[in-house]
């Protein structure tokens, strides 16, 4: 903490993640589906370990409880350009 390229950006992230977890739980999505960890670019093994662990957690949780009811919108291929 406090070691952020954008000064106190990560302090803000910490708060935001806490809030997001509560929001997710409020709409019926498990808070474990959102995870935050500080890993520097020099800590490859920690990063791999964290991601592997997260993937395993997500696999164990299975599909989202909201999945059955909703289908994602397809993005359109043609867009406006200036």
């Amino acid at each position: 903490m406090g070691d952020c390229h954008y000064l106190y950006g990560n302090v803000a992230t910490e708060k935001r993640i806490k809030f997001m977890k509560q929001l997710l739980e409020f709409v019926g999505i498990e808070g474990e589906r959102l995870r935050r960890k500080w890993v520097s670019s020099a800590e490859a093994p920690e990063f791999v370990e964290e991601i592997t662990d997260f993937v395993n957690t997500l696999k164990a949780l299975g599909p989202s409880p909201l999945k059955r009811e909703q289908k994602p919108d397809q993005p359109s291929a043609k867009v406006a350009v200036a």
Partner: protein
Amino acid sequence: MAGKKKKEFEELRIGVFICDCGSNIAGHLDCKAVTEYAATLPGVVFAKENLYTCSEAGILEIQEAIKKHKLNRVVVASCSPRTHQPLFQNSCKSAGLNPYLFEMVNIRDQCSWVHMQDRENATRKAMDLVRMAVARAAFLEPQQDIESPLTPRVGVIGGGSAGLSAAEGLSRMGLEVVLVEKNKELGGLLRNLHKVAPEGVDASERLEGLIQDVSSRPNVKIFTGAELKSLDGYVGNYVMNIRDGEGQTVKESVGCLVIAIGAIPLVQKGLFGHDGKRVITQMELEPILKKGKFDAKRVVMIQCAGARGDERSYCSRICCMIAVKNAMFIKKLSPDTEIRILYRDMQMYGTEKEKMLWEARGEGIRFEVYDPAHPPEVGDKAVRLRQPLLGREIEFAYDLVVLSTPLVAREDASELSQLLRVPMDQNGFFLEAHAKLRPLDFAADGIFLAGSCRYPATYDEARSQGLGAAARVGTILFKDKLVTSAIVAEINPETCVGCMGCLQMCPYGAISYDQERKICQVNEILCKGCGCCAATCPSESASLRGFKPQQLMSQIRAVMEG
């Protein structure tokens, strides 16, 4: 906000270039398959595999494809954007494509190199990454780099050896300098010094030359007894509010600043019995030596006095050299004086200082190591020392004890740090942007630092840092105008309700509140593009160019499609 954008519908024509990077990528995943896959993605009209996309042939191919296939987006899947994005962006630009319509994806460092043992999955992942990049590219918008004028003047805060050297360097480069010194006289710490190590030149000789040179320059404006009270503006266009010697407030426009406020030698009453008479600091010894009369016959110097302990954990790094320098000078003035230097570790870095240490030993100056767990005790007549090697206690009678105390940060440094919005370390020294890559820069653009306010420095070091900072200023002010990346935040004035949530979050003070329109707005020069405001804004009014919700969501959707 720029003028209203003319919206036209245009067919999306994306060109994708997959780089083999020799065998760096192609050796671990199937680039041919990735290229074939890329060609099937929506909007892609051209896909090509290159042996080296960054080679002249590769670049030429991109430029020809832009013209021949009327590409309006280019995606390169290769190595790190850190090293190669500017190159590819520039080649797009010279082929007539807005460089912000370029997207790069790293399938080397983040794919082929990490999955060397798993060709099949590495290939699948590369496809996923390319699909994401193509999806994002579809939503990219053309941008213009931000240009702003530059004021070719520089503010130098601090008129010690570092500040004077910076002022001298800047003035010689033809830039106008505004030098602000808090004291009545220029010179800083050097004013009190006797000799400058390792050459042994008179400090006053060095100083007078420097002061004379700087003060006689027509493009240097000097304020003494003055202080910087506040700073407005941003890189290229700062305004310093200075309180001058008469207490008047003066405004000076400058493009950049050099901070060189120095540090103060610690003088702590009672430290090892410090009384300023028989127990003094190295700094208090200097004027005695300057007078050229020295009668003490037995001198004990104690290194790391008040440093490298619980209160101040850092090493001041120059006091070993100062002790040796002064000890050798005492020997010159009074050859039969016995000198002992009690030390923990001798920090005599560099060949010249290492040589000095050997010469000092040759002159009969004695060095005794002590253990920080059993520091020397200074009594009325003698210093007691526990020799760690022999484990026995010995006493040295003394006439004079000299403490090598550290340089400590100035008390007003924290005030200045808040005023400039630049960080300090736990010891109150200013923190550079990067210890190795940007040692004389602050993270804030256009503000540089030099000398002992950064970390204790010798005269030579302070001087070279001052000149170095001047050179760093040159990299900004010798351009016609300031060009910064367009990847900054913008706030939609139509939807902003002026809640000021973003204003609180912005680490760079780049957002201000417009009282009249009751909305928040971004200063594009101050903005660093961190996106804190965009993540905070409850109405998506604040967004980061190139990272708008649509652009990010398209990427996320694309990865889910796999």
